[in-house]
């Protein structure tokens, strides 16, 4: 028996009258309250917020162009003008750290956004309509999942001359939408059998209304949680690909590009100021995003226990 059923009806009005007559929280507000109690997640929000602010407002903190080369200042150590020294072509490391963070965050966020759109649309269609539509979309996800990600990305990058940020984001989104699509479809399949969906059908609600008013609000927990965690993994993918030289091409600063300079053993040994900050940048950003994702999962999907 559901424990909530045990509450006698006579007791309820008293409770309402007692405390907080005007206080009535929506499930979303309750989720935010639960999230706020998670210290790790809140700290991560603050840290991530600071990182975003610093990267977005990069011109305030440095007035050196991150792409400007200066052959007279190659691999210099930290100085007053160049706080983190300069790299192999004389670009300022500090400036590249800030502007590179921008690129990494933009890549992570926009790839997540695109994946989200593809995933929600296809997942909704598959999960809501089922049958042939579902079959078609699920076979498409199978095919995309079957392709080896790294080989595919390397091939595409090798074929294309000039990889821009937009193109890079598109490639990531087009190769990684199936996971989210499957999660959304799975959530819908379980929602579809619930009586409140039948109830919406019984009043004659349109498919559009049922999807937007009944399915998405009830699936928002898994969607948000997975989108957040995906963003972290995209940042890592960007750095990983940049590190092996198949990411966003060199003059553009990214954290991955900066670390890739440490492939040189001399820089690795003698210039830790050149590669530790971008490494820390990736670590702290990804860690914060993951903590936020975990916090969101605990807050909005209380049934799933902490893993």
């Amino acid at each position, binding site marked *: 028996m559901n424990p909530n059923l045990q509450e006698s009806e006579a007791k309820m009005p008293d409770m309402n009258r007692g405390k907080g007559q005007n206080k009535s929280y929506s*499930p979303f507000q309750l989720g935010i309250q639960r999230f706020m109690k998670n210290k790790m997640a809140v700290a991560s929000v603050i840290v991530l917020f600071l990182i975003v602010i610093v990267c977005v407002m990069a011109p305030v903190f440095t007035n050196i162009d991150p792409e400007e080369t200066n052959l007279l200042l190659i691999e210099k150590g930290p100085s007053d003008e160049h706080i983190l020294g300069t790299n192999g072509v004389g670009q300022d490391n500090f400036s590249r750290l800030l502007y590179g963070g921008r690129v990494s965050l933009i890549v992570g966020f926009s790839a997540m956004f695109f994946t989200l759109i593809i995933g929600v649309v296809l997942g909704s269609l598959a999960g809501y309509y089922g049958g042939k539509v579902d079959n078609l979309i699920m076979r498409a996800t199978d095919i995309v999942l079957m392709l080896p990600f790294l080989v595919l990305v390397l091939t595409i990058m090798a074929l294309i001359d000039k990889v821009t940020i937009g193109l890079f984001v598109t490639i990531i989104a087009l190769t990684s939408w199936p996971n989210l699509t499957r999660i959304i479809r799975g959530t819908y399949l379980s929602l579809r059998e619930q*009586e*409140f969906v*039948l*109830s919406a059908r019984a009043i004659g*609600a349109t498919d559009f209304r049922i999807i937007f008013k009944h399915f998405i609000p009830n699936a928002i927990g898994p969607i948000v949680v997975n989108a957040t965690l995906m963003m972290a993994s995209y940042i890592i993918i960007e750095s990983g690909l940049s590190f092996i030289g198949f990411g966003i091409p060199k003059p553009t600063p990214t954290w991955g590009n900066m670390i890739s300079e440490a492939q040189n053993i001399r820089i690795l040994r003698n210039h830790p100021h050149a590669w530790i900050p971008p490494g820390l940048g990736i670590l702290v950003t990804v860690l914060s995003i993951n903590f936020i994702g975990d916090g969101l999962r605990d807050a909005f999907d209380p049934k799933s226990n902490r893993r």
Partner: protein
Amino acid sequence: MDAANDALVKVKNVKKYFPIKGGILKRTIGHLKAVDDVSFSIMKGETLGIVGESGSGKSTLGRVMLRLLDPTEGSIYFNGTDISHLNRRKIRPHRRDMQIVFQDPFASLNSKMSVAELIEEPLIVQSSLTKAERKEQAIEIIEKVGLRAEDRLKYPHEFSGGQRQRISIARALVTRPKFVICDEPVSALDVSIQAQVLNLMKDLQDELGLTYLFIAHDLSVVKHISNRVAVMYLGRIVEIATKKSLYNNAYHPYTQALLTSIPVIDHGQNDIPRKTKIKLTGDLPSPSDPPSGCTFRTRCPMAHERCSLERPELIEKDAGHFVACHLYTE
């Protein structure tokens, strides 16, 4: 039963078979006969109770009648219109006249919507009322079902089971339907609250002139609210009669068994003669592989040879009292 003039709902030879798929190619290898050739009608303003064990097809029947499921065969007439083959768009205007209250008040309300959103949603879908008019109608119905107008800003998780069921009822009634299917609306509630909700539904019926199809799994709840009662077994109606006739003079062995299973405190005032006490043994046979002939014969103490050969049809034993049993066919 066929005084069809003031029948609001008429169900004619309705069947609902669910295909059973199997094998690698997912071919249909059989059918689950959830509802098998059911006919009856419901008069304006009456309550027809439908009783049966779990798996007897009573909920499926309710869902087919509202076209939440499509019937495999047969027709459903609502207010004289055959709605059994209307497409989704054509059936939409009819939906404001027929509604459903579900069993589980925790599953049938979208927990992400406030009470106001839940109750106004049918109006948004079904009418072109302004926001203020919708609010006014919602408040009116909220107060009718015994909640307070300020409750409309709350969310379902703030209510108990009985109060949630009141919200469900308000949602079902806000478009002022003529016909409401109550799919075990009190089964999930505490006994003390069951009576409150049943009385509320009865009062609303009188006030708004509603017609109910009341689905339940035991005869005691149905007795309280119904005018007529139909007993279902494995997708078929085995007995249908007025409440008085059914409770005093049940013909079908299954109905008799259900009646004797109602716990009674005072035997002296009990209508059922003690000698007819029948104990049911065994489980409901699988609806995908029902017994031949009379589907009840495997559990029937009075079964004889003919029961396995021939399927009994509903016959009118007394005026308005129909029974499908070979004991009463000569």
